[in-house]
């Protein structure tokens, strides 16, 4: 963020129009600190003049970093909630719980994976639930028209791929702001779902298949589908954390200019991300259809905000450049567990969304409190210090 104008003149022309919303600019609370200055541990700020440049790595390293980081805290919190629920909530500690909890959480979990990558790269995708709805509608109509189920599934995944590619072209190659574009495609894809299936519902999917989607692995209560979900989780975690492409996404989220200079193909990376969200959303749509054995145009509507809430709760920064798959998993499961435990405990379902919202706000406000306190103390010291 030091001198974007200097970088502008020499950027390749292809990236021309897409640079307006620089990273820190997205929806920032005005007056929030620049990325370079926020949340630096204490010793870095001695004199008021030296706020930006000195970036000595003063953070935790090694095991401490793993055990005390944001992700770890989320996982501890999840464990605490699970233990607490097991003790306090009757009937919570049983395989039935595991089964239903996971079945409920799978759509969010699936879409949260590519969404994590998208938000880390500094973009957003609001159209995911509409893509799932479109897939669901398509599935119903194709199946009713007598298409073999295998072909139906293939076409549905391809439809998701195409929908994702549409988003991707507009955002990555035309450089349009992703928030605005995906609000548009949110309406468009949901509208197409309506066009495809109208207000009909298709329910007569092959019983074998729908039974498979609600079946459990032996007596453990873990849904069979989880095997596939775990494979996807591992795949996304590996891509994000252990490949050059994944490291590039973090760089992209921090600064698009810098990422371009170190040789990351910004447009292509973003395009691939939107392909991934489209495809995985289609999988979630298929899952949704078969789990509830009902294909309707309004399936999964409103899921986009739930997914984003879970991802942000999982420690992904809305500005990009920060986040991890384990943290997001913990975030998704935390919301799922709390909701399920409260439901079992007969807390009325309507209070649940208050919990979700409060958690989300708390998760972003809480980390800023120590920084704010430190800044206030620092400001007081500066003011009281003699001018010399």
């Amino acid at each position, binding site marked *: 963020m030091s001198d974007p104008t200097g970088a502008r003149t020499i950027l390749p022309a292809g990236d021309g129009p897409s640079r307006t*919303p620089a990273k820190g600019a997205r*929806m920032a609370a005005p007056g929030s600190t620049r990325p370079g200055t926020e949340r630096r541990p204490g010793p870095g700020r001695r004199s008021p003049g030296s706020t930006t440049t000195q970036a000595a790595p003063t953070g935790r390293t090694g095991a401490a970093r793993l055990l005390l980081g944001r992700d770890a805290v989320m996982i501890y919190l999840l464990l605490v909630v699970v233990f607490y629920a097991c003790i306090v909530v009757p009937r919570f500690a049983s395989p039935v719980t595991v089964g239903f909890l996971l079945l409920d959480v799978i759509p969010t979990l699936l879409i949260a994976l590519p969404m994590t990558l998208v938000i880390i790269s500094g973009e957003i995708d609001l159209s995911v639930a509409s893509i799932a709805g479109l897939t669901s509608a398509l599935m119903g109509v194709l199946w009713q028209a007598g298409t073999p189920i295998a072909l139906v599934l293939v076409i549905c995944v391809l439809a998701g791929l195409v929908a994702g590619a549409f988003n991707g072209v507009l955002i990555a190659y035309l450089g349009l702001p992703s928030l605005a574009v995906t*609000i548009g495609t949110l309406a468009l894809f949901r509208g197409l779902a309506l066009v495809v299936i109208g207000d009909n519902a298709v329910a007569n999917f092959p019983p074998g298949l729908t039974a498979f989607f609600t079946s459990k692995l032996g007596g453990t209560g873990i849904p069979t589908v989880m095997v596939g979900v775990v494979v996807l989780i591992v795949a996304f975690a590996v891509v994000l954390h252990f490949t050059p492409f994944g490291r590039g996404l973090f760089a992209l989220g921090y600064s698009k200019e810098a990422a371009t200079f170190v040789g990351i193909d910004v447009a292509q990376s973003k395009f691939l991300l939107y392909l991934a969200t489209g495809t995985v959303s289609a999988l979630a749509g298929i899952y949704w259809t078969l789990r509830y054995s009902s294909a309707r145009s309004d399936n999964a509507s409103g899921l986009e905000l739930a997914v984003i*809430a879970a991802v942000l709760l999982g420690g992904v920064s809305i500005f990009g450049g920060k986040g991890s798959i384990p943290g997001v998993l913990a975030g998704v499961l935390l919301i799922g567990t709390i909701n399920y435990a409260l439901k079992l405990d007969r807390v009325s379902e309507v209070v649940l969304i208050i919990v979700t919202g409060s958690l989300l*706000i708390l998760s972003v406000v809480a980390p800023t409190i120590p920084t704010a306190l430190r800044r206030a103390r620092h400001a007081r010291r500066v003011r009281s210090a003699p001018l010399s």
Partner: protein
Amino acid sequence: MSLDSRSAAPVQPAAHPKPSPLGSFLKLRELPVILALVVLVAVTAAVNPLFLSQQGIKDLLLNATILMILAVGQTLVIITRNIDLSVGSILGLVAFGTGSVFVAAPELPIILVFLIGIAFGAVLGAVNGLLITIAKVPALVITLGTLYIFRGINNAWAGGTQYFAGERPDAFGNLSVDTVLGFPVITLIAVVVVAVVAVYMLGTRPGRDLYAIGSEPEAAKLFGIPVARRVLLAFVVNGALAGLAGILYASRFNSVGATTGTGLELDVVAAAVVGGVAIFGGSGTVVGAAIGALLLTTITSALTALRVDKFWQQAIVGILILAAVVIDRLAGARAARKLRIAEARNV
């Protein structure tokens, strides 16, 4: 988007000849959406003359009223480079609150109910604004959280209860039936709101400050603009307007309950975007946003009048939003190029 031609013009007034009125009209950001609205209405009226009958116009305006007010409020927030996703929930809470006030105290003067509702909305908006400005966290995250919290409170408060129009005084319900000069009363309220806020944004110091904040928050701060206070103001006004919209909702629609206004937030943002408000702040007008809202709601009626399959409506709305985004980008690119050329000449 911060390179908007209008925001750049005052920098070097001597270098440019004063643009002709026609030229500045053609460059108007709202022009595409006005054109789209005119073409839409003209085509529909040509095919189906009933569309522009007195009743038809009244329905159009009534349908647009609530979205217009919400879009105006949202525009203030978006111009400061923030966003408020909680407006649908605020509207729901206030609408249900209005219903309960009338049940609890049927003889309360209507004007007082309006004041209570607007104040309630303003308080909810202030919650958003304070969280965002004090904790310095992104508005998207905070208002996504309050979207859920306000909705949850609404659920907990209402439960299965719904208040129906019969439980409200006739005079209140008549606000959305009676017309003055052919305009429904609640639409006139909306028009007054649009006019007042438009003047405020154009001609007052705090209004201009909002644009400055959205163009470049850091520069605005260095310039001495009280950024946090102005952003808080935008959120409070937006909350108050969402509250007003909630009251009008209670007047216009038969029932208010736990789910009133669900999912409205993205429609509102869409209306603002269609009306030429740049999603990253710094440019756009409330008049544009209001026309955007009018266009979005008119499309629904127009498609019905044109006997287009009703299932196509939402898809067309989506295409419209995308078109607005593309047009905005093209206009921005043109303005940026002009600015570069002007700067090069000025060296």
